[in-house]
């Protein structure tokens, strides 16, 4: 990796998100995205990974709000932008791909229209020019007969095809960052492979950074350059993918890796993390993982700070796993 790639283009610090009723969904999250890299944001459901990304684009649901923190991008704090200025970032500099593409596309507008309108909004293209570009994009994302499909509607496409359309839409204005929120969760494995491949290829080709939100460690391992692991609203470990996967220091990361059966080898007995993820209402003081952690100690009742190792490998644990 070149030096240029190490310059973060987005850095999020001290992000705190609260939902109605004073529920803190995200607490003290810091991470950065570097140019051209794929950052994997992993965690189980409810860990706050989607909310974190939505907050960057001002897309939190009505009952949620950012209480603290900043997200510096292109010299401005995304979290303090008003709707109008945010609209200049959305879709143009930071694009968003959601899961379940079929529902995320407007059922009564043609595919072509939906791709073209981003370019018309941000790049001032007229309809015919935007259409022409849309054909190119559809062709690029592997939609067969793109000029014909321009006039199709989302319900006429399969989930995989719609996800390709979403990708085309996201890439329309050549954004610096694409946030992909579980882009393949609803898809079959063979299609998932196609989509991931496509995304990686295009990002590489254009130097786009990708924030890949997923619960699937396999996807992270295969796609991401760096990974951030979240648990119950906190970032517990982050770093280069090889560091985190081969040398996990946080017991949660380790447990997560061990509890997943592998396709490439036979496993006799899976290691499990006992217990349940605590609900936001019953969050323990200090480290949220402590109730399930075998190495928990009294001091875990205070939230540990982040310990930083080589190559930006960080973890938040009083009693880390030994280095491999």
């Amino acid at each position, binding site marked *: 990796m070149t030096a240029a790639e190490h310059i973060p283009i987005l850095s999020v610090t001290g992000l705190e998100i609260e939902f109605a009723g004073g529920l803190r969904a995200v607490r003290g999250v810091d991470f950065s995205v570097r140019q051209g890299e794929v950052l994997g944001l992993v965690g189980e459901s409810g860990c706050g990974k989607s909310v974190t990304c939505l907050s960057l684009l001002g897309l939190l649901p009505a009952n949620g709000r950012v209480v603290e923190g900043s997200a510096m991008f292109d010299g401005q704090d995304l979290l303090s932008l008003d709707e109008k200025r945010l609209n200049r970032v959305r879709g143009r500099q930071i694009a968003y791909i959601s899961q379940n593409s079929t529902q995320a596309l407007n059922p009564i507008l043609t595919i072509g229209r939906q791709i073209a309108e981003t370019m018309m909004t941000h790049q001032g293209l007229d309809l015919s020019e935007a259409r022409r570009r849309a054909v190119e994009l559809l062709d690029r994302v592997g939609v067969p007969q793109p000029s014909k499909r321009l006039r199709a509607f989302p319900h006429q496409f399969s989930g995989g095809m719609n996800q390709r359309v979403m990708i085309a839409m996201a890439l329309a204005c050549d954004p610096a960052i694409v946030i992909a929120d579980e882009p393949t969760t609803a898809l079959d494995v*063979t299609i998932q492979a196609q989509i991931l491949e496509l995304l990686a290829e295009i990002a590489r080709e254009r130097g786009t950074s990708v924030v890949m939100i997923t*619960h699937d460690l396999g996807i992270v*391992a295969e796609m991401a350059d760096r990974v951030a692991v979240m648990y119950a609203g906190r970032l517990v470990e982050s770093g280069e993918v090889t560091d985190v996967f*081969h040398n996990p220091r946080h017991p949660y990361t380790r447990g997560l890796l061990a509890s997943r*059966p592998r*396709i*490439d080898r*036979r496993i006799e007995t*899976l290691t499990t993390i006992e217990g349940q993820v605590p609900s936001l209402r019953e969050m323990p003081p200090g480290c949220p993982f402590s109730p399930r952690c075998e190495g928990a100690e009294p001091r875990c009742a205070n939230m540990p700070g982040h310990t930083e190792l080589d190559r930006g490998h960080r973890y938040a644990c009083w009693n880390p796993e030994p280095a491999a």
Partner: protein
Amino acid sequence: MTEGNELIRAEGVGRSFASRRTSMWSATEAVQAVVDVSIGIRRGETFGLVGESGSGKSTLGRIMLGMMKPTQGRVLWHGTDLAGLDPAERAGFRRRVQMIFQDPLGNLDPRMRVLAQVREALDIHAEGTPEERKRKALATLASVGIDENLAQRYPHQLSGGQQQRVVIARAIILDPDLVICDEPVSALDVSVQAQVLNLLSRLQAELGLAYLFISHDLAVVRYICHRIAVLYLGRIVEEAETEALFAEPRHPYTRALIRSVPVADPAARRKREVLQGELPDPGSLPPGCAFATRCSLATDRCRAEAPALQTDSDGHAVACHLVETAGTRA
């Protein structure tokens, strides 16, 4: 294959669907969801049924459960055709075969306490006194890790893993021989998946259960199943003992499937062999091999003539014109 100790056997089972008539005006279109499938499950074994959406694996599960009648072929329970069971035998079959579905919450009645739901199986079969039923239900729940406190809750007050444990408790309370598990862990978080998989293994060991394990997740299937059949568009394309299948996948589809799954190890990063194209419309399949439209190796023969499932001496069966190796029985 020794059919003597098989609990249940599907013989040439097929099922075509007419999309449900919404009124007398709407059309009926037949779609072949399952085509000529034969599988047998032995006592105490876990039989995996793998495939992507549209592969007919859930339909096959429901047919085996006796909840859906096959349009072709038959299902044999201890050698007796399900269709021919008298009411008493049928009730017996109902008790001996249970099912676990994918979405644990959807699997439970949202307006009933979980204890009542687990007990209901006993209520239906009018087993023992109400007090005994309650005691047995609590005991069963305890055996899957749900304490009495949780047992008094409503499903939505439990976590996903706990819900699935309740579902499992309900499935095993009647001491079944076979449990059909339709994607039992795919809705669960990774850390919880492992708990449930281990629970299923433990129960199998303790109770001598057989599982028909339906899943799209090859890693999970590899972990838990003894024998696996791979389905594509309602047809078995390959069937083998688990390790044989993963060691030497013979059908191009099986191979692609296995290689599509990302591995959680950056060191194992490999060039993925991406399967091109999407599922063809099952309503208008070409005459030949169903997989031919996406198979990079397909020949003219593949497109013209459907391959038969051929089993070799190790019990490794595959339906592909390109895999006609020596020692394969005709």
